[in-house]
């Protein structure tokens, strides 16, 4: 059987995944601000309310803590809520419900209750949005033990990862790269397929250097790998996909092979996933490292306003500088 493919943007792939899963599993409910009648401010939930009704596609009051709190209540009662938090800066309203409840209900009840919920939200800068709309919060959620954290980097893996996230028995933070919502189209199978959580993807094999990233920064990472190739540096490109629990094996194996690693992310440098990967490389690869594991990241500052956001975000130039540096050891 040949898979039927369609050209989709990332937002269309998300929409397609939600349509498929709501059709397949009547326990799935979508909820949030403007997700019903309007179909979401980014159009991720368009058409869902017409098809599945107001009981399953819910325009909630404007209250993020309330959205997550009631979603937890639904999740411990047999439903599979997929709440949307409209913009990344509004996730902060939800922290108490996420840390104190979503993340630990399974543990508190020794497995009696669990929270099969997927919190969808855009993340990251790059579209000149207003203040509080461009945050990169993945490390904060990784610190909330009990949550899983997933970030797709394109239409294809967005769909497969979201379907896995909804089917996962634990709460998943599904952060969508806002900058890539409409900028790329890929061939996406129209039918159901799942990309397992907890697995990184080696996008390109290489022998000199492992370049590790996720989400919207995969764009710059791939471009830097192309540029490095012209300089005869063979780069292995890894899309981490799941930030927690992450695929340590794939990363370690790649560093074992290349002896060099650079992690690229938009979120702040300190106490980041990049910091963690560097520490793990020290644990496992100490004797075969040829250069220090390097991070190319956002700075340790509040996300800057529109005209300054490019200064904070890693770009190909900065990644190339890091490549030159690690290759010079």
């Amino acid at each position, binding site marked *: 059987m040949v898979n039927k493919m369609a050209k989709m943007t990332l937002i269309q792939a998300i929409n397609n995944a939600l349509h498929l899963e709501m059709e397949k599993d009547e326990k799935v409910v979508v909820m949030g*601000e*403007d997700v019903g*009648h*309007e179909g979401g*401010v980014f159009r991720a939930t368009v058409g869902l309310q017409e098809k599945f009704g107001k009981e399953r596609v819910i*325009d*909630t*009051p*404007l*209250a*993020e*803590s*309330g959205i997550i709190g009631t979603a937890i209540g639904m999740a411990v009662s047999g439903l599979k809520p997929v709440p949307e938090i409209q913009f990344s*800066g*509004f996730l*902060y*309203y939800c922290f108490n419900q996420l840390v104190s409840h979503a993340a630990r209900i399974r543990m508190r009840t020794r497995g009696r209750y669990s929270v099969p919920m997927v919190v969808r939200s855009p993340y990251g800068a790059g579209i*000149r*949005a*207003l*203040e*509080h*709309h461009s945050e990169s919060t993945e490390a904060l959620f990784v610190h909330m033990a009990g949550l899983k954290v997933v970030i797709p980097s394109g239409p294809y893996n967005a769909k497969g990862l979201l379907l896995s996230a909804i089917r996962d028995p634990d709460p998943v933070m599904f952060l969508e790269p806002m900058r890539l919502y409409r900028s790329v189209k890929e061939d996406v199978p129209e039918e159901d397929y799942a990309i397992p959580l907890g697995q990184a993807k080696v996008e390109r094999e290489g022998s000199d250097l492992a370049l590790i990233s996720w989400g919207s920064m995969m764009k710059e990472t791939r471009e830097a790998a192309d540029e490095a190739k012209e300089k005869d540096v063979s780069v292995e490109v890894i899309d981490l996909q799941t930030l927690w629990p992450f695929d340590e094996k794939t990363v370690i194996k790649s560093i074992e092979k290349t002896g060099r690693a650079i992690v690229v992310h938009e979120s702040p*440098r*300190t106490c980041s996933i990049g910091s963690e990967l560097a520490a793990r490389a020290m644990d496992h690869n100490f004797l075969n490292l040829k250069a220090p594991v390097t991070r190319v990241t956002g*700075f*340790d*500052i*509040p996300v*800057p*306003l*529109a*005209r*300054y956001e490019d*200064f*904070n975000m890693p770009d190909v*130039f*900065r990644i190339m*500088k890091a490549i030159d540096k690690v290759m010079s050891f």
Partner: protein
Amino acid sequence: MPRKKIYEGSVEYLQILDEKGNVDKELEPQLSNEDLDKMYRFMITTRTFDRKVLSLQRQGRAFTYAPVEGKEASQTGTAYALKKTDRVFPSYRDHGVYLTRGLSLKQMFLMWMGTEEGGRMPEDSGDFPFAIPIASQIPHAVGAAWAAKIQKQDKVCAVYFGDGATSEGDFHEGINFAGVNKAPVVLVCQNNKYAISVPRALQTAAETIAQKALAYGFEGIQVDGNDVLAVYSAMKSAVEKARKGEGPTLIECLTYRFGPHTTSDDPSKYRSKEEEEEWRKKDPVVRFQLYLRSKGIWNEEYEKKVNEEAKQKVEKALEEAESSIKIDPTDIFKYVYAEMPEPLREEMEYLKRIGEEKKEAHGEQNG
């Protein structure tokens, strides 16, 4: 065995100037012609500024913008009842509040041009930069009012938010603190019927937003938010009450945004044309004109002059704002802390170095 009614509350609705220009003489506030002229000019300047930023946004000279047209009476009417030494805590659509408070048009342009300098409030003002996270400014205003009370300062705080904000925890927590502490604060809700696309009926099952105040132990009033006289009167009583130490008031202004939520929104998806036209007929500016005409202030010539002056001021301020913008990358590190920590200084130095190296590399390519 008692089973009896133990609480009964009521909420008043206030309108002084109706759509046809009829005035309730008993309720009419005593405003001088000079005050009326000033208020009208604030409203016209707000509308002129608003239309200008919208056109700039379309040209890519401003970023995402939240237009205010339709709410001029709710904003100027409330802000005009405050003293300069009072404080306001606005939301992102309160351009008319800032203008009436005397914030410069130049600063207001900067606020919407994505510059870090946009939030630098003038030294002689205690007003706050607008809050984007919904309702999050409400506890701040209550805290600031509480601080004024503790420090025995004559300061009333006013906080602005929309109908959607009344669903947030911060609204309930904030106004509860206000009630318990009798804080000198006025809570101004501009109920424009929609939180982006979500109609008011999906925010609360309560008949009015004003009545929420009763549950927190203070007074709430609903006013015709497109009637600048009603808005001003309600605000004036609330401010006087707060100043006397008699606690907070919640004012619900029934109003409408003529335009979209922001420049990224298409309201035709969730509002009917008929409804929009219905509200156009309630235009707060047009209604105020009828009143000013009856007072002998307004005529065609006056209208032309006020608009022309507003336009000139707006154009001049825009020029000043745009020419003042100097983007220094290191600005993103300044003001994070009182003293820049060493790790931040290193990051700043790295960014500077990268900037120089980019320039060099660019030069090489050209050369």
